[in-house]
């Protein structure tokens, strides 16, 4: 999580989750993490592993590059 301060990773998880009508708990269950981890991801306070990023992409039905970017969206 220290790496987060050095290399910020921007994401669009929250708007895509809301557009899909999912709660944080539902998305967390779909990708196999704790509901708080979704909150940390949405706020950009945690950078996911590649596996988790791909799971999120699958759960939200969007390519991973639409979810995450090293530059602000």
């Amino acid at each position, binding site marked *: 999580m220290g790496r987060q301060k050095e290399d910020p990773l921007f994401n669009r998880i929250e708007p895509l989750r809301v557009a899909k009508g999912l709660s*944080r708990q539902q998305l967390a269950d779909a990708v196999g993490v704790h509901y708080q981890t979704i909150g940390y991801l949405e706020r950009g306070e945690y950078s996911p592993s590649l596996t988790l990023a791909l799971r999120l992409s699958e759960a939200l039905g969007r390519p991973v590059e639409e979810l995450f970017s090293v530059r602000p969206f």
Partner: protein
Amino acid sequence: MNDAKQNPKDRFYWIEGVSRGEVVRALSDHRPSPLRRQGPRRLLVSSAALVMTALALTVFIDQTKIRTYSEVILMVLGLCLFAFLRQSVRLISEAPNELLDERQIALRDANYKVAYGGISTLTLVYGVLLSLVTGGGWLEEQLGDRFWTGIASSYLLCASSLPAMVLAWNMPSEPQDDAA
């Protein structure tokens, strides 16, 4: 983590000292609690540190009866604080990897490094004290048999609590709306 929710069969992890059920319950507890905030958690850590220090210092009480009562009271208090500490970090400090997600594992492991540094230092200090107490001289005369009850129990309590203490101290307050 999902496996834990789907598998109704509870299991006790002897090395970690937790059961699958209690970890799942602690992680999915949505009830508001002061222990979800960093301030009260740090107060809990400070109280535990104070109790452990006091337990170690009981060794200097001369009256056997007062010393024994103090040791028992402080040990019970220390164990209660240890239980609260574990709950305050949702058992993340003890839970096996299979019950945690990658963020929780990363958080726990980062704090383990600090905790084990602390335990190593504590063990070194304890080893030096032990060699002084058993090696003759003033300290052996002063402490003698008392060493094992006060300092040793404080050391054991401190060594087992340190991972939870470090995590409780460093973990940020939990945002209220994450379950939404």
